[in-house]
């Protein structure tokens, strides 16, 4: 479980996060949704320690991550897997080396054990016979799956996904969503997903946090979001022509 307590962050004169508090539950897909500029990326980057919040704290299972020194944060970081928007695979490494990277850095496994683990996680994300390919040689959807494989290779307790569907066609996006959801349940991870894709919200939104102008505006799940009367949330949910037509 991850507790976000009264997080605020200001860049210059712009207060991006205003006293945000929420809980990301273990074994569930916790979504952060909101329009561009609502503060969801800053909230996620605060959670993974890429941005230091001005106020408040982030607690990973009773461990006060945001108050720890960089050296002490390392222990918690080893339990994190992060899927970046563009995948963030290392260009100079092939698929196998990318997935093996956390194992090389943080385990004392033999090469054989590492290869077994790499092949296992690649199989888990439905990728086989791609070990020797480089990121430039695979499709966007495959890149996301390799990035998921890398994120889970070291058995993390926490999985963070920043816009996992950006740049993907709807069918592939659905596959990625389903995969993240399955992995979350299978490994009982605390998964946090940053998205503005309504398909994802309705497919895997077990817990949804809606941010509006830097504030936590609404909390709920995929079953209640369509019935909610909140005007700002309605504006977000029914912002496309397709959703407006379906609503009618």
């Amino acid at each position: 479980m991850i507790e976000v307590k009264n997080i605020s962050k200001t860049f210059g004169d712009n207060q991006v996060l205003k006293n945000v508090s929420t809980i990301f539950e273990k074994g569930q897909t916790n979504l952060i949704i909101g329009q561009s500029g609502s503060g969801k990326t800053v909230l996620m980057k605060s959670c993974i320690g890429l941005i230091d919040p001005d106020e408040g704290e982030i607690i990973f299972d009773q461990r006060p991550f945001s108050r720890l020194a960089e050296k002490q944060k390392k222990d918690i970081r080893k339990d994190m897997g992060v899927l970046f928007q563009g995948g963030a695979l290392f260009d100079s490494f092939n698929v196998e080396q990318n997935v093996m990277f956390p194992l090389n850095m943080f385990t004392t496994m033999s090469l054989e054990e590492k290869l077994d683990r790499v092949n296992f996680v690649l199989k888990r994300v439905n990728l086989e016979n791609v070990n020797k390919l480089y990121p430039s040689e695979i499709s966007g959807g495959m890149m996301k799956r390799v990035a998921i494989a890398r994120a889970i290779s070291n058995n993390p307790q926490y999985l963070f996904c920043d816009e996992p569907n950006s740049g993907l066609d709807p069918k592939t996006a659905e596959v990625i969503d389903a995969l993240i959801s399955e992995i979350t349940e299978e490994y009982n991870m605390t998964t946090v997903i940053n998205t503005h894709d309504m398909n994802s919200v309705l497919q895997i939104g077990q817990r949804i946090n809606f941010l509006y102008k830097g504030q936590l505006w609404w909390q709920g799940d995929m079953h209640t979001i369509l019935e909610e009367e909140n005007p700002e949330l309605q504006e977000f949910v029914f912002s496309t022509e397709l959703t407006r037509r379906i609503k009618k």
Partner: protein
Amino acid sequence: MLKMLGEYLILLVEIFKRPDKGPVFRSRLLTEFVGLGTDSIGIVVIISIFTGAIVAIQTAYNIDSPLIPLTMVGFTTRQMMILEFSPTIISLILAGKVGSRIASEIGTMRVTEQIDALRVMGVNPANYLILPKITASMLFNPVLIIFSMVIGIWGGWMACIVTGVVTSTDFIMGLRGWFEPFTVTYAIIKTVVFAFIISSVSGYLGYSIKGGSVEVGAASTKAVVYSSILIIFFDLILTQLLLI
């Protein structure tokens, strides 16, 4: 400028921390020896041969007085290659080739979130990415420069033989005369300092990028310009300190 210097010094502190894993560092060091070192041998050979040849021919052309012996051509070629052309000119060439490569490689990793990925995995990105480059440059550039000295002098000798401006005997006699071994030490000290400047300044400029592909290009250009200016500046300082 002061802010930049401060950021550069803070980054150096991060870079020179103990690597997370020794075997990973050694593997990356070997990769950098190839990328930054052996891949540069071709251009070093070409530039050195022609520089040595040009120095020899120009020296011979400028000796008008019968009181100056033609052995001076060999002597001058050796001195010019060891003291200045190999350590400084080759370092300037490497600032263009290696510096831009380091800045664009690290800059691209920054804009595509690869550096963020390293950081959230608990890896010190500055140490992981830049330390092997600095170490490889500081260890391999002196080898390149010694190679350049030998090749450059050979180029001068060949130019004399082919053009006939100086006999081979005169050239070799000059080459062997009045040799001061400290000049080689001086050249190696300069090279090591220049290698540090090229790799650390370019690494800093790539690492500190904010933005996208346009900034990567700008950082790559800045890496060459700043490294070149610093090389010339430190050339003057080191010459003053070590030779006078």
